[in-house]
């Protein structure tokens, strides 16, 4: 109710429900300010350290950035061609073909498949971060 009232005060919609680009610019400016401020504060406090120097005594262990944590986690348990190739390629093809796949099934099943698919990736990434 309150949102509708505010919208009616600040928006100037025409008969097709369209508004001026200025409305978007104003929102983008607010978003820009908030994001930059937040990032600046976050980056100031969460300083990132460097890893081990190449000149130090070797402490090498299998390691990956967190974005590839799922693959790295699988590499500990499965052969390289399965965890490093088969699993990511199937996932990538499934993701690319998702619009065509979902057009052949109901919307509910499309969502279930997506949730399961992304859930596996997120779970493996979390397992890698917290276990290894």
């Amino acid at each position, binding site marked *: 109710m309150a949102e509708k009232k505010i919208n009616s005060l600040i*928006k100037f*919609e*025409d008969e097709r*429900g*369209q*508004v*001026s*680009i200025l*409305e*978007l610019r104003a*929102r*983008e400016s607010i*978003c*820009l300010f908030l*994001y*930059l401020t937040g*990032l*600046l504060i*976050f*980056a*100031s406090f*969460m*300083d*990132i350290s*460097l*890893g*081990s*120097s*190449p000149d*130090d005594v*070797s*402490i*090498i*262990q*299998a*390691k*990956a*950035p967190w*974005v*590839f944590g799922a693959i*790295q986690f699988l*590499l500990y348990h499965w052969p*390289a*061609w399965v965890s*490093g*190739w088969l699993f990511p390629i199937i996932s*990538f093809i499934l*993701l*690319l073909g*998702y*619009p*065509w796949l*979902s*057009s052949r099934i109901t*919307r509910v099943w*499309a*969502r279930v498949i*997506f949730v399961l698919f*992304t859930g596996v990736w997120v779970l493996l990434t979390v397992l890698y971060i917290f276990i290894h």
Partner: protein
Amino acid sequence: MHRRQQTSLWQHIRPQRISGKSLRFKATFCLGGLSFLSFLILVGTGMLLLFNYQPGEKAYSSLVEINSVLPYGALIRSLHFWAGQFMVISIFLHMVRVVVSHAYRPPRELNWVIGVLLLGLTLIMDYSGYLLRGDQEGGAAASVGVSLLQVIPGGKALAFIFFGNPSPLNSSTLHLYIWHSHVLAWVISVLQMYHFWRIRRNGGIRSL
């Protein structure tokens, strides 16, 4: 005049009037915009880092210098790192939002494919940035990548094209540096522009 506005790329991406519904916060949660903003911050901070970063053997020492000697060097590196992580997260959440709102359905399939490619390229950018630190952890991560590529036929050549010759103790190479700061950055820029162009072409944002 009207025809010129219709054919102009900028006018196409940023028309004078837009749908009021698409302005609602929950229509997009600003996730696509935040991804793009993160990318702009990455480009800005990355260009500043280029002035002092040296790929190869001196990578680690040049980062130590950036971190500890240059004024605001540590902050710029921190901004570059965190903007990269937020970009990956916001792209992922943007993809989830697109699925929930069924915004991948016709006629938007091609834009979905572009989005998935952008996600893949962003992950590769993240990985190559991790290797460019030139530390032992990066060396270990590069070894994993090289080993994986060598599993497939022609993998040795592919590994050399992307990685160069990283050492297990120092992953930073000129090859990775060129891919990270030039080739991939430009490819992502062009794909992003095409992605935005197609959003308008396909009828604008589809709200939740």
